[in-house]
């Protein structure tokens, strides 16, 4: 137990790294919306995965029960996080693993660099990991003269193209097969010049490209999908076998994992390994899952390290109404069903975490006032598709609204002149806080005709409402509100009854 725990909130320490959007979401979204190819690719891919997910989820008679168990397990993990971390640490260490703690992105990067140096390596193979994406590990290692080779097919595509991932599961979802072929032809030194764009041929090209790297690598870097506290076990869920290559062949394995990835016990995996594959790739089970507990003599890496990362997670945990965002198991179901993500793609969100989960997780990890992250919680029509799809039942719409209120609150008093939206909301609150005042304002409805054209449509509105009339008309208001009509109708009825 810590002696400094005082039972009161401390000052949250936010995270750093690739967690920010540098421009407001609407600005970035507008640019992405103009990219017809991107929208076609995304529309095709997200629709494919949605249908698959629905099919395999419908197969399970106990899907809702699994979601309930998953959600409760994660709630319990958050409530017990410090003790579970200590339990995990004890078990992992007892079996020969070494744990490192990193307060933020920079500290994690430095730890990893030192471990690579200690292993005498200047290149590493990597299995796809959101945590290392978040801390910007590849960029950092490159600055330090260490080459990091992404081995997941989609990560490889993105890395070869010097692009950024746009989806947490399928980072190259924004590219179609012919674009991928072009990237391979351009960037793979020994590629078959007659490479076609059939996915099987492209996958084979990746196999040939990476085979030597896998068989000779000294150091591998991974993330982890789950960590089991009661046994000290780590788990990586994957499809291609690149994970198995990285986790098995090198002498040194360095895993970077957020502190929230814990599960209390091994048997909890029976729930999460039913929820995750069906929610992410729409498969009954992913091709490969690897579990390791510290070091196993004669089998796999003999130097096994784990970097436990805070980087804003403690700050997110401190937000009672936002902390369930940490339940996320990175399945990406929310982005696959999101109508906003489907149209803008992942780059519009700036952060490593795009889509609905990113719109809450990024500002929770960085603080709502950091750069343009306050614009992210507004990147949703609150349609609720994400909440329905989430395997651990994160109420994303509710957290989006909570973060909007944090944003509004954080701006109060900081501006000399309130914005148009602030003024409008204030005025509307006064009017709508009373039926009498509402009735009074409705008396002015006939004036709406003045704004409308001869076809009784309003085609241009000023100020904050201008966004509406860019693509939509507004009908002219009626000459009489319902309230007015009701009052007159009932006066008539009442007077008839008297007569």
């Amino acid at each position, binding site marked *: 137990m810590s002696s400094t725990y005082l039972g009161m909130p401390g000052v949250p320490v936010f995270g750093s790294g690739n967690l920010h959007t540098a421009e407001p979401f609407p600005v970035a979204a507008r640019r992405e919306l103009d990219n017809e190819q991107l929208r076609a690719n995304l529309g095709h891919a997200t629709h494919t995965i949605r249908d698959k997910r629905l099919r395999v989820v419908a197969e399970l008679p106990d899907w809702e*029960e699994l979601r309930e168990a998953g959600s409760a397990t994660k*709630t319990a993990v958050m409530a017990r996080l410090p003790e579970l971390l200590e339990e995990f640490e004890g078990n992992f260490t007892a079996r020969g693993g070494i744990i490192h703690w990193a307060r933020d992105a920079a500290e994690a990067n430095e730890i990893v660099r030192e471990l690579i140096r200690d292993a005498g390596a200047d290149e590493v193979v990597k299995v796809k990991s959101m945590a290392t994406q978040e801390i910007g590990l590849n960029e950092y290692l490159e600055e330090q003269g260490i080459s990091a080779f992404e081995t997941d097919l989609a990560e490889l595509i993105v890395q070869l193209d010097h692009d950024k991932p746009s989806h947490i599961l399928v980072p190259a979802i924004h590219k179609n097969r012919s674009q991928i072929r072009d990237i391979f032809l351009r960037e793979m030194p020994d590629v078959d010049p007659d490479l076609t764009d059939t996915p099987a041929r492209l996958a084979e090209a990746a196999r040939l490209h990476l085979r030597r790297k896998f068989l000779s690598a000294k150091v591998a870097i991974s993330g982890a999908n789950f960590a089991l506290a009661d046994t000290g*076990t780590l788990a990586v869920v994957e499809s291609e076998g690149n994970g198995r290559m990285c986790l098995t062949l090198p002498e040194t394995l360095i895993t970077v994992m957020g502190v929230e990835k814990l599960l209390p016990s091994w048997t909890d995996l029976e729930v999460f390994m039913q929820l995750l594959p069906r929610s992410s790739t729409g498969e*009954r089970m992913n*091709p490969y899952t690897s*579990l390791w507990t510290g070091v196993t003599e004669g089998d796999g890496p003999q130097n096994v390290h784990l970097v436990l990362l805070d980087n804003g997670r403690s*700050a997110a945990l401190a937000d009672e109404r936002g*902390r369930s965002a940490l339940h996320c198991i990175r399945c990406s179901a929310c982005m696959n069903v999101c109508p906003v993500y489907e149209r803008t793609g992942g780059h519009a969100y700036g952060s490593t975490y795009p889509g609905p989960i990113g719109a809450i997780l990024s500002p929770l990890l960085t603080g709502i006032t950091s750069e343009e992250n306050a614009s992210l919680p507004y990147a949703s029509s609150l349609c609720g598709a994400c909440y329905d799809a989430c395997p651990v039942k994160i109420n994303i719409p509710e957290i989006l609204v909570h973060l909007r209120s944090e944003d509004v609150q954080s701006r109060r008093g900081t501006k000399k002149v309130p914005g148009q939206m602030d003024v409008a909301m204030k005025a509307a609150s006064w009017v709508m806080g009373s039926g009498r005042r509402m009735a009074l304002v409705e008396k002015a409805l006939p004036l709406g005709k003045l704004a409308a054209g001869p076809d009784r449509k309003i085609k241009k509105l000023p100020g904050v409402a201008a966004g509406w009339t860019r693509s939509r008309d507004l009908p002219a208001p009626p000459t009489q509100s319902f309230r007015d009509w009701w009052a007159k109708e009932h006066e008539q009825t009442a007077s008839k009854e008297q007569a």
Partner: protein
Amino acid sequence: MSARTEILDRLRSALHDAPEAPEIPRKYRHTSGMNEAELIELLRDRLLDYKAGVSVVDEASVPARVAELLAGTASYVVPAGLDARWTALAPGRVVDSPEEPLSVEELDGADAVVTGSAAAVAETGTIILDGSPGQGRRACSLIPDHHVCLVRAGDIYGVLPEAVRRLDVTHPLTWISGPSATSDIELQRVEGVHGPRRLDVVIIRS
């Protein structure tokens, strides 16, 4: 203050409201109630869906079936502890043992690998290897491009919780559901990337 102490302190103070850890409702299925024939059929169906090869045989027919699957194979790896009778009819066997482990190059030079398995889950089409004798270390079943995996019908469970509760997780576990695959191009599944591109499962009836 060490990073460890500081992070744990931050997390403790983040829980200033002392939230309660709820009871976990475990109302999901823990058993399937299927008999052996049903389990075999479901497992077969799922594995075929993943584009794995599946044979269902009696114990006596295993050697012949394994030999057929390895036809044309110059050399294949077996982990120490695998019942020698099962591969008796297939020439080209190379044994990988803790005492004399094969090098990565030797594993890469083999055309195939034959292993046993610890458990299988019918509903998800999953075979689990735990590194016990006959299953080998993880590199064994990974590097050769063709994996012939023997599954005893008695080790097949209907749903995942049944299997999980019978395994020792402190062994290195590999869960295999079909040959390696990717959905990274337009979210369409394509079989065959870095792991074995061919998976043949031989289910042995009790």
